[in-house]
């Protein structure tokens, strides 16, 4: 049976001299190296990319609309599902924005635990990036090593919150509950063993000539262009801009920690790789410091109308029982106003904009996802590169489609 060519779109028309023409191919949404359901429409001249048009929205679930129909405390659960590799970071950005509206003071211990958990989550997120990035380029072994280490972090997060990927551990006004007994010991065990694992990753990749050839000089974006495109996080620091919100606009007590901001000047995939590798070591430093500062104390703010009371208090105190009922049944009142709170997520500036008109539900919640903005610069980065380099470049900007499509 012959295929009719009359009704095909122009880019699929059969031509006499194929080498003289440009070809349009569709990469994704099922392509494994697009890290989810990203579709790229690539116009190729031979193997060179002439034009790249990302097509997103395959994972759009209307989360921003859903926020408007949920009480503030119910919104935390939605944030878990945006950037599913960095759920604690999303929790933190959201709860801190609401806390800003409420003007809550968070106890010292809760802040320290937040920093501790967020930095462990950052390492876990970078481990997934490293494993999949290396896998895209053809180094399969690293993937298993990374997931082995990540598993240890997820187990700790599970021990603290009960959830591995969707912890919802941070609550408005503090934490869900205190850390379980023996958590410090587990953290210590992890921090003692992780440097050896990090060395292992370096042995596998950093000195690997194939990996270097695939990454050096590929996907170049200068510092000026990166800022103009709104790139943040490790991808920006790979272009030599030392911008880290943990340092520039500290939140949750980050100003008290001693850590460096790794930057590289290569502006290419390799530079972004090195930044993240060094960043894991820096995060480990913060984890150690936070673990050593865990002093006993409350983990919830003293705000009975916002924070759920302890179980024991509910059984013995009438007002605690009333507050519990009101918070669960009707929610709590948040004053009218609008805030934008940004934190340094594992992929860049993670900002949450909340507009409140009073009442228990927000009027508008918007999430500025770092992956969304970083991906918008992809056409700039892949222009003139080979088609095989596209997977290396996508890997280097570390996107998560759950956050892009929301």
């Amino acid at each position: 049976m012959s295929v009719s060519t009359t009704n095909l779109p122009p880019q699929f028309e059969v031509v006499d001299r194929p080498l003289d023409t440009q070809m349009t191919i569709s990469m994704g949404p099922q392509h494994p190296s697009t890290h989810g359901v990203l579709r790229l429409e690539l116009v190729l001249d031979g193997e060179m990319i002439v034009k790249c048009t990302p097509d997103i929205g395959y994972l759009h679930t209307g989360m921003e609309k859903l926020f408007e129909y949920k009480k503030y405390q119910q919104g935390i659960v939605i944030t878990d599902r945006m950037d599913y590799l960095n759920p604690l970071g999303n929790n933190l950005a959201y709860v801190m924005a609401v806390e800003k509206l409420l003007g809550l003071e968070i106890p010292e211990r809760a802040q320290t635990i937040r920093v501790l958990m967020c930095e462990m989550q950052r390492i876990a997120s970078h481990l997934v990036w490293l494993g999949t990035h290396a896998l895209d380029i053809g180094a399969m072994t690293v993937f298993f090593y990374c997931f082995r280490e990540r598993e240890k972090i997820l187990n700790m997060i599970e021990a603290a919150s009960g959830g591995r990927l969707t912890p919802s551990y941070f609550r408005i006004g503090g934490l869900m509950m205190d850390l379980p007994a023996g958590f410090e010991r587990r953290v210590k065990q992890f921090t003692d063993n992780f440097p050896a694992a990090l060395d292992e990753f370096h042995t596998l990749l950093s000195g690997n000539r194939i990996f270097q050839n695939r990454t050096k000089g590929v996907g170049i974006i200068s510092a000026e262009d990166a800022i103009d495109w709104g790139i943040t996080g490790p991808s920006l620091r790979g272009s030599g801009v030392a911008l880290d919100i943990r340092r520039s606009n500290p939140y949750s007590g980050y100003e008290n920690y001693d850590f460096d901001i790794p930057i590289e000047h290569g502006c290419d995939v390799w530079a972004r790789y090195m930044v993240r590798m060094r960043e894991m070591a820096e995060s480990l430093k913060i984890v150690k410091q936070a673990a050593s500062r865990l002093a006993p104390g409350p983990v919830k703010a003293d705000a009975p109308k916002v924070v759920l009371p302890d179980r024991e208090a509910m059984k013995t105190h009438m007002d605690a029982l009333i507050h519990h009922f009101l918070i669960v049944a009707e929610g709590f009142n948040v004053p009218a106003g609008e805030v934008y709170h940004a934190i340094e997520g594992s992929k860049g500036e993670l900002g949450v904009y909340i507009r409140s008109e009073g009442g228990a539900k927000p009027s508008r919640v918007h999430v500025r996802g770092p992956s969304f903005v970083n991906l918008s610069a992809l056409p700039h980065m892949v222009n003139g590169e080979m088609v095989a380099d596209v997977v290396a470049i996508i890997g280097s900007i570390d996107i998560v489609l759950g956050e892009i499509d929301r």
Partner: protein
Amino acid sequence: MSQDIEREKQITEAALTTTDAGRAPALLVDTLRREHPEWLGEVTVAFGEVTVVVPREQIIHLCAHLKVAPGLEFNMLSDICGADRGVEEEPRFEVNYHLFSTTKYHRLRLKVLLNEEDTHVPTVTGVWRTANWHERETFDHFGVIFDGHPDLRRILLPDDWQGHSLRKDFPLRGYEPYSLT
């Protein structure tokens, strides 16, 4: 390598000496008001954030000025997001521009208010290229039209989607089940 470490230290020190990041823009906006009173509407400072209401005709002039103005240097556009203030409200829509400076580390929010009948705003893609996708998203969700935008298409929802999903009069579950076929 040692140069790098040295440079990192300098940058870190510079960052640590930055003073109150929220107050600086408020003071500088005051000087701007003296020079170009037509650019700025109401200025509010709340929750440590500065919000400036901008007449929509002036948004490009103001943004281009803020991007390079000494002392302000808002060289990065963090975010653009629309909001629906309510079906009964007049003006009904707002577009919020969140500006950030990668050298001064301060933030500023610009706000453009729009009536329901006339949801046109000039695009700022000429000032920051990152505005492209943010404006497409705002168009997709609210139907705000950015005049002069190079590629104003829907970005998250399908091309044949009817209506604008984040408007307050759009039901949570939509009007009917959407089918790809």
